[in-house]
């Protein structure tokens, strides 16, 4: 089973990335639409997705931008929003084949997103090949960037009401992910997500916290409390 090059081919990675491609594509359409609505030109909108490849992080980033945050706040805010990548990277690194170094490592590190991490982790391998990761990242990257460009262009032709409805795609994507987790791991998933939703709503609506900080506090505290109360398995 264990070969030098590691488990799984480029082709398998690309195929495993197709559901991500579809989810990203529709989510990125919303990103492209929003960019256009807040006045970011086409070139910069595409560049945003090409250089960040950050899913929800990009929505929060342009939120911070549109709300007129200082450059420093924006930088720290984005860092905090993406802090979870630290932990995902640690876990993913231990699952990679030993020959992933140099430029290969740069590409894998660039491609760590929530969904790519989740799909790669679900392979339950501690010897994932670079080719597999590259395939997974390629299909996801295509979905994210083509979606951004097409979303921006759709903004020019879609009726206003439908554009507004398309704003739900991001939340719909999270909700679908949650539904998969719920199916696999049971009700505790909903408890943790519900707790985090409640804290975030409280911080933003009642205490008027900035959304970047509130997101980090809600996420970290819910994961902590979840870990305290759920000692069984894993």
């Amino acid at each position, binding site marked *: 089973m264990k070969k030098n090059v590691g488990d799984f081919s480029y082709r398998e990675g690309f195929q495993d990335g197709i559901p991500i491609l579809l*989810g990203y594509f529709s989510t990125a359409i919303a990103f492209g639409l929003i960019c256009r609505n807040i006045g970011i030109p086409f070139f910069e909108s595409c560049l945003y997705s090409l250089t960040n490849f*950050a899913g929800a992080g990009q929505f929060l980033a342009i939120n911070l931008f549109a709300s007129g945050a*200082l450059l420093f706040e924006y930088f720290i805010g984005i860092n905090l929003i993406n802090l979870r990548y630290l932990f995902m990277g640690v876990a993913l690194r231990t699952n990679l084949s030993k020959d992933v170094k140099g430029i290969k490592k740069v590409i894998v590190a660039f491609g760590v997103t929530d969904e790519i991490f989740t799909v790669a982790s679900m392979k339950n391998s501690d010897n994932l090949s670079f080719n597999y990761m590259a395939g997974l990242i390629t299909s996801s990257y295509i979905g994210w960037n083509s979606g951004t460009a097409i979303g921006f262009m759709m903004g020019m032709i879609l009726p206003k009401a439908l554009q507004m409805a398309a704003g739900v795609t991001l939340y719909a994507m999270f909700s679908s992910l949650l539904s998969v987790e719920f199916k696999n791991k049971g009700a505790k998933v909903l408890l943790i997500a519900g707790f985090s939703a409640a804290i975030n709503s409280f911080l933003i609506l009642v205490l008027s916290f900035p959304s970047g900080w509130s997101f980090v506090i809600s996420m970290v505290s819910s994961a902590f409390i979840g870990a305290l109360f759920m000692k069984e398995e894993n």
Partner: protein
Amino acid sequence: MKSLPLFLIVIVASVATMIPRFIPFYLSFLNKVPPFIKKCMSLLPVAAIGALIFPFTILDFLPVWYAGLLGIIAAFVVNYYKQSMLLSIVISVIVTYIALLV
């Protein structure tokens, strides 16, 4: 910040995104974390989802506060039974669209 070239703002966002992505691949201090912290890490994505959905799925569609809510419920149910993210997103947009029109 709005006086800065947009190009620069995009690059700053990229650098801020890539720092946490690259650190674990090049520094090893994070490897020796205790099991409890690892357990916390494994719960982070689910914990993030809750805060990513609420309260903005309500706020984004005001004054029709339930439009986004109906949309995400539709996505959850469709994906639970059909396991197709694209289908659940499309249905979610349709449900939200109808809720906004009614």
